[in-house]
């Protein structure tokens, strides 16, 4: 979304706003550092396997439980699989889960928030629904959902895709509420503004109105909650894997790697520390980016 807007010729009004945002974002030290770290992690996870082409599931029984050495810079695990390759493969899955689950939850949250704010008839029932979801015990329900739907979904789509769909769906369905509330509040305020009245008076249909006038104006809170949503989705996924209810054992994610290594924590603490640091750094950097974005997108703070 941001790319599309900044790509337009910079002289006139709309692009200036995004340049201001970027300037403000750059002045936030934590956010810039977070952006660099997150880009580095993303780069390693996506481009790393091209350079370090060892297979993450290759079992080498003669090189079990090795420390860092020439062939394995981060050592090997209890089946002699290369830790560096496993970390990169795990990161790809963890970040993919985070991004997809975030997109789903943002989509649901925006849809429900805009419908509730824009159409008065839907407001009551949709906000009741939001309150209801907020009153659900989410982590227990996530665990129950994984327990119930793991078998049928992995039968239907194969063990890996099935669990991926299940976890992304479960996280997305249980995390849209905050976004919906924020978006609804913004839409309610926007609806009273003159430009909406003007648009309505020339006969804009509700659908066009939302697409052209409402959605661009609620983009900033959506972006902030999207960033924070990535972080919480990554944490939730690794928590599920840590409780043994996530991805299958031969399918590495950061949470799964940590969970597998906990049994041998006394002998090989590094194997626990590495995926843990990966999760923590990612979440920390994403949270800092979110903080910076919130400051940068707030016109009251911007320009000070």
């Amino acid at each position, binding site marked *: 979304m941001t790319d599309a807007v900044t790509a337009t010729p910079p002289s006139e009004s709309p692009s200036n706003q995004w340049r201001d945002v970027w300037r403000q974002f750059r002045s936030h030290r934590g956010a810039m550092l977070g952006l660099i770290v997150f880009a580095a992690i993303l780069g390693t996870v996506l481009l790393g396997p091209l350079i370090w082409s060892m297979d993450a599931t290759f079992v080498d029984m003669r090189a079990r439980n090795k420390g860092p050495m020439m062939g394995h810079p981060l050592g090997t695990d209890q089946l002699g699989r290369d830790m560096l390759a496993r970390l990169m493969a795990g990161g790809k899955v963890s970040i993919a889960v985070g991004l997809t689950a975030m997109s789903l939850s943002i989509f649901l949250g925006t849809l429900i928030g805009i419908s509730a704010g824009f159409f008065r008839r839907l407001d009551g029932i949709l906000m009741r629904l939001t*309150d209801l979801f907020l*009153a659900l015990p989410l982590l227990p329900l996530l665990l129950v959902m994984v327990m*119930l739907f793991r078998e049928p979904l992995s039968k239907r789509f194969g063990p890996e895709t099935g669990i991926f769909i299940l976890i992304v769906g479960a996280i997305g369905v249980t995390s849209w509420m905050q976004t919906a509330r924020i978006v609804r509040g913004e839409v309610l305020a926007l609806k009273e503004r003159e430009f909406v009245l003007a648009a309505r008076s020339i006969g804009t249909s509700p659908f066009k109105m939302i697409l052209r006038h409402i959605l661009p104006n609620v983009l900033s809170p959506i972006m902030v909650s999207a960033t924070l949503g990535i972080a919480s989705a990554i944490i939730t996924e690794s928590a599920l894997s840590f409780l043994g209810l996530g991805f299958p054992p031969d399918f590495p994610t950061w949470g799964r790697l940590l969970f597998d290594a906990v049994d041998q*924590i006394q002998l090989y603490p590094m194997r626990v520390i590495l995926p843990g640091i990966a999760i923590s750094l990612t*979440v920390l950097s994403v949270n800092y980016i979110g903080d910076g974005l919130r400051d940068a997108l707030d016109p009251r703070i911007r320009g000070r």
Partner: protein
Amino acid sequence: MLTYTLRRLLIAIPTLLFISLIIFLLLDLAPGDPMAQMPLTVPPEVKQKMREALGLGEPIHIRYALWLKQFFIIEPMHILDAMFGTNLGGDAQRIISWQTRSPVADIIAQRVPQTLWVVGLAYVVGVAIALPIGIISAYKQYSWFDQIGTFISMIGFSVPTFFTGVVLIIIFAVNLQWFPSIYDTTHKVTGWDSFVFQLRQMAMPVMVLALYNASQISRFMRASMLDNLRQDYVRTARAKGLRERVVVLTHVLRNSMIPVVTVIALGVPTIFGGAIITEQVFKVNGLGQLLITAIHANDLPMVQTLTFIFAILIVLFNLVADILYGILDPRIRYD
């Protein structure tokens, strides 16, 4: 205020009923069968009778109504019986765990003390740390204390508890050997030595959870203090010649505590539900661990009851937070 409270209580009833319906329907889809473990020598018609005895043959709305009756009428009666030695419950059918074949309520009653001790204490410690940190960070905004405080709270907020727990185990249990890595629930406090042991085994789980809770609450405290410090009444108080202590600790603190108190109240249900992971890391056999083992063992009545208890707590403390808000802030009147 009273009418508002009553109205909220009345709204809470359909909410809870709806949540219970969602949980019931969700679990009704479960593929698990309590008869799966029966030996194959049991004839099918006997099996069928056993299924009916467990209430599995009935249509879904009857089973739901029966479950509601068990949960809201029969179980509370049995709890009263256990407390006062009466016999209200008689021999009515209770909610039975498929794992242990004993009433679910009894097992939960055994597990609650561990959770309350470890997780509840962690919450208290977390709040006690968070409030002063939030106050000082806001009062000295952008000082080194504030920078370090916000950084640490960002870390505590971002690093998942299973990782902090594991790191603490590596440092304090494996390398330094100060604390045991596994929580021993059979341990009884009889004298000074056993009390010290109890403190040592509680130290790590409490530290992990306290850090997590403190980082969240201190962020709220800081933001709320900052909001209030910029208000006009603070300038007025200073202009009147009040001492700085009085201005900050009486005028500003009282006002900025209002949202923080509600946040603290809203966080209480997570004491029970959200500590699932920490209990798993340190092998504390509290409620969270009970839920995990029940899920792994496909023990649906247990899962159902626990999830619904968590839901009741959330609804209850939402109500408490709303009412507290009304009591603490005279500007807010619901009527």
